[in-house]
């Protein structure tokens, strides 16, 4: 049922004319008072790199999906993540040793291609591959967009029955991305977490001191 269209009301032109003037004056006045009142408020800017109350990564929502990170000491090279990835941005290669152990050749994640959907992290059964809360990864060459997680030759693939505990998220990336975590707060108000990554957990192997964060 279409409502009946009321006949067009032809306003008195003189009233319309002065009504326009009145509206122009009053709306300008109103707008000016609103903008003036904003001059006395505190801005809502989060002064990102150095003047925030706490690091931005701590303000992110619980479910935030940042850069991908794999803990190779827990990775069984089951290739589930690489198969799940819609874009194929994870490439894993392993080779077999004569003694039966398998060794990582490559474990690369192309950050430039990744669309942060989280399917790979969901597919990982051993909590090896996970999203961190890091987002600062701008680089100056396309090659650096790919993060190579195999840090030394002869890195053995983990066995599913004895896995070390997961290392804190973000600590591995910090060593791999050049200039990672350079943007630190200049003035630290109350608490002093200078490094974005806490110290590595005991028992973890590999050259993972948070040197890259300094």
């Amino acid at each position: 049922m279409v409502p009946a269209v009321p006949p067009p009301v032809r306003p008195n032109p003189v009233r319309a004319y002065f009504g326009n003037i009145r509206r122009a004056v009053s709306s300008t006045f109103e707008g000016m008072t609103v903008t003036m009142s904003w001059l006395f408020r505190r801005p809502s800017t989060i002064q990102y790199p150095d003047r925030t109350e706490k690091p931005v990564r701590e303000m992110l929502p619980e479910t935030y999906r940042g850069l991908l990170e794999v803990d190779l000491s827990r990775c069984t090279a089951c290739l589930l993540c690489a198969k799940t990835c819609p874009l194929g941005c994870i490439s894993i290669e392993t080779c077999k040793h004569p003694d039966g152990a398998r060794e990582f050749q490559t474990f690369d994640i192309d950050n430039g291609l990744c669309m942060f959907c989280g399917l790979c992290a969901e597919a990982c059964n051993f909590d090896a591959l996970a999203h961190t809360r890091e987002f600062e990864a701008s680089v100056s060459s396309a090659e650096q967009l790919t993060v190579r997680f195999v840090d030394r030759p002869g890195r053995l693939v983990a066995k599913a029955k004895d896995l070390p505990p997961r290392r804190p998220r973000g600590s591995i990336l910090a060593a791999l991305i050049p200039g990672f975590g350079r943007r630190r707060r200049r003035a630290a108000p109350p608490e002093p977490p200078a490094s974005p990554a806490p110290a590595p957990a005991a028992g973890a192997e590999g050259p993972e001191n948070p040197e890259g964060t300094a």
Partner: protein
Amino acid sequence: MTDTPAGRDPTAQAPLCPTGGDSAPLVVTTRIDDLVNWSRENSIWYLLFATACCGIELMQTGGPRTDLDRFGAVFRSSPRQSDLLIVAGTITYKMADRVRLIYAQMAEPRYVMAMGSCANCGGLFQQSYSVVPGVDAIVPVDIYLPGCPPRPEALNEAILRVQDLMKSEHWASRRQGRGNP
């Protein structure tokens, strides 16, 4: 249109100089180069080239929550007056000519940032028949910013990265230009 990053320039991969973190107060030294670089890095006028969802993120980075104006980075709509071309979004082959045109119109100390996966390497649409696999195939890119789309803070960090790049190079050599692709 090649699919190799032919236009890439070696200077774009020069190592960044350390920023000094906590102890980097603003010091205007007597060297002219430093003054020039100081003025350049604190007045990055960027050109919005927003074609997809990264563009929304780019626009809101200039908004109140992550105010880019704090660093003197404001947007200019004319390529002649802007220093940094932020390619934010999917670049199709049809759009590629426009990107090249806009890059050619910029005045010389000019920088290009590829923002988001599509601009980095084609991203989600990499296999598409119509999408350029990375904007570095058509213009030389100085900074790659991963993310799909990146957070506003990530873009902010990339702008700081451009500042580092400016700080690390000689103004006059940059001014001579790298030619048009």
